[in-house]
């Protein structure tokens, strides 16, 4: 607007926003369901989309990804985006380290920015037993070719100067493991990148399509019933995370899963203060700082079973108490928002991947509080499993039968709280 007495602009005024780029094209096709697919993936989160992407690389593209809500709107939208591979046992090292190697090349593979930032992770030790367990895990990691080192408190302070390493806190920091290759990524971009690639390859991504039942014929499932009609399937791949039990109840397949709320929160945007990721199992908190500047913090699960995508406030209160003790500089930060996802927890804190009693139904669940970091590795191995009709060696140790044989992969020490 030109006011009297001021100089009129030399060019015609433009409407607000005219200099902004056009709304970009959709990253994936919104497909109508066909009546039949070679592979039907149930669950359009990170794992389902990654499985679709790697199936396409194997030349299998007559595939549908069914998502009951919107794409990547469940745990993929709610996790704290931590990526690391410093688990204790060989079986876990295999799948998580494979995933980390794929993360390191994923931006190039997807042709899409995922803001993968390898800023390292500190796992703090607060007791003598913590120290012994941590040193053992560092050595186990090294034997598996995973980068790991043990740091004393002074070295911890060099990596992350804002951690309180003084002796006057309730649980003093006695040292930490450090994996320099660990990092964070922008979870939405990861999902969108996988969805774009899968869609380009001809895979149908179908949102607002909830599976309501299965059509079985003996030991085969011939199709899925959905809110958008029946869809025939050559093979069914379940990637439904916290809602896996709901699907398995429809199939009559029992699994040792308990679904819990898991809460996380972010602060307001702050100047960069936190250069790495810090996790503490003992005091139940893990913290990183997102690219935009929010402090992202997660806690342990709410103890009761719950599908409500919300949790109790006292869990957040305890988490904040732990965070402020470890990071006094956070004391005046404001909580911006908190939320919860539904995580499927197993008795040994390891996932369940592989065969089911139905010969053409494959299961991927039980990642509990830490499935995001496995996204590309799981997608790669699960696609191979689905394509060849048998568990890929990287996921073979994680079959449902381990609860009968007793060959558990106990990762409570590396996974129970902190992810």
């Amino acid at each position, binding site marked *: 607007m030109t006011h009297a007495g001021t100089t009129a602009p030399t060019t015609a005024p433009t409407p607000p926003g005219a200099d902004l780029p056009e709304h970009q094209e959709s990253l994936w096709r919104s497909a109508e369901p066909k009546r039949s697919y070679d592979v039907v993936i149930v669950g359009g989160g990170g794992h389902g989309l990654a499985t679709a992407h790697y199936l396409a690389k194997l030349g299998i593209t007559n595939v549908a990804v069914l998502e009951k809500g919107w794409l990547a709107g469940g745990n993929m939208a709610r996790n704290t985006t931590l990526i690391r591979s410093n688990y204790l046992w060989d079986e876990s090292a295999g799948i998580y380290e494979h995933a980390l190697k794929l993360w390191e090349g994923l931006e190039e593979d997807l042709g899409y920015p995922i803001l993968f930032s390898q800023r390292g992770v500190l796992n703090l030790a607060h007791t003598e037993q913590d120290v012994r367990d941590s040193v053992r895990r560092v050595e186990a990691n090294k034997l598996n070719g995973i980068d790991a080192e043990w740091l004393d408190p002074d070295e911890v302070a060099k990596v992350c100067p804002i951690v309180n390493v003084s002796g006057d806190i309730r649980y003093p920091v006695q040292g930490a493991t450090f994996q320099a290759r660990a990092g964070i990524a922008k979870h939405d971009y990861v999902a969108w990148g996988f969805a774009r690639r899968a869609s380009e390859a001809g895979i149908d991504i179908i949102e607002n399509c909830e599976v309501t039942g299965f059509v079985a014929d003996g030991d085969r499932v011939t199709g899925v019933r959905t809110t958008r009609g029946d869809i025939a399937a050559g093979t069914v791949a379940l990637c439904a995370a916290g809602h896996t039990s709901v699907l398995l*109840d429809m199939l009559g397949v029992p699994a040792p899963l*308990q679904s819990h709320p898991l809460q996380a929160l972010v602060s307001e945007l702050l100047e960069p203060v936190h250069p790495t990721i810090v996790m503490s199992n003992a005091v139940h908190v893990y913290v990183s700082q997102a690219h935009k500047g929010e402090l992202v913090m997660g806690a342990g699960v709410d103890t*009761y*079973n719950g599908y409500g995508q919300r949790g109790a*406030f006292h869990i957040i209160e305890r988490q904040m108490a732990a965070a402020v003790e470890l990071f006094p500089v956070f004391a005046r930060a404001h909580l911006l928002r908190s939320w919860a996802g539904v995580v499927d927890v197993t*008795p040994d804190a390891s996932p369940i991947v592989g065969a089911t009693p139905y010969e053409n139904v494959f299961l991927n669940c039980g990642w509990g509080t830490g499935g995001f970091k496995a996204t590309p590795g799981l997608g790669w191995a699960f696609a191979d499993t689905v394509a060849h009709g048998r568990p890929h060696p990287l996921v073979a140790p994680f079959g449902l039968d381990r*609860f*009968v044989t007793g060959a558990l992969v106990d990762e409570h020490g590396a996974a129970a709280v902190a992810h």
Partner: protein
Amino acid sequence: MQLIACPWCGPREEIEFSYGGQAAVAYPADPASLSDEQWARFVFFRDNPKGPFAERWVHSAGCRRWFGAVRDTRTYEFLSVGPLSATTARTSVLPEATP
């Protein structure tokens, strides 16, 4: 934080209670005869319904007594509370798995 109605103490804050998981899981009548498959079911497998769930709770920071509850896992609303024996009888409200 929600209030949980302890059958003996009345409504108290959730933080006073601890969760005990699925109610009415019977110990095997003849343990020596169980197969590995049956032991796996008893040790590791519990129902995980989306909806009403018969559970055990304990009033840890109060009377320290166990009790039974039926709680909706979608809304977290307690539909009923009572002695464990009463919850055992309510296990039939669990949705049946459709094979």
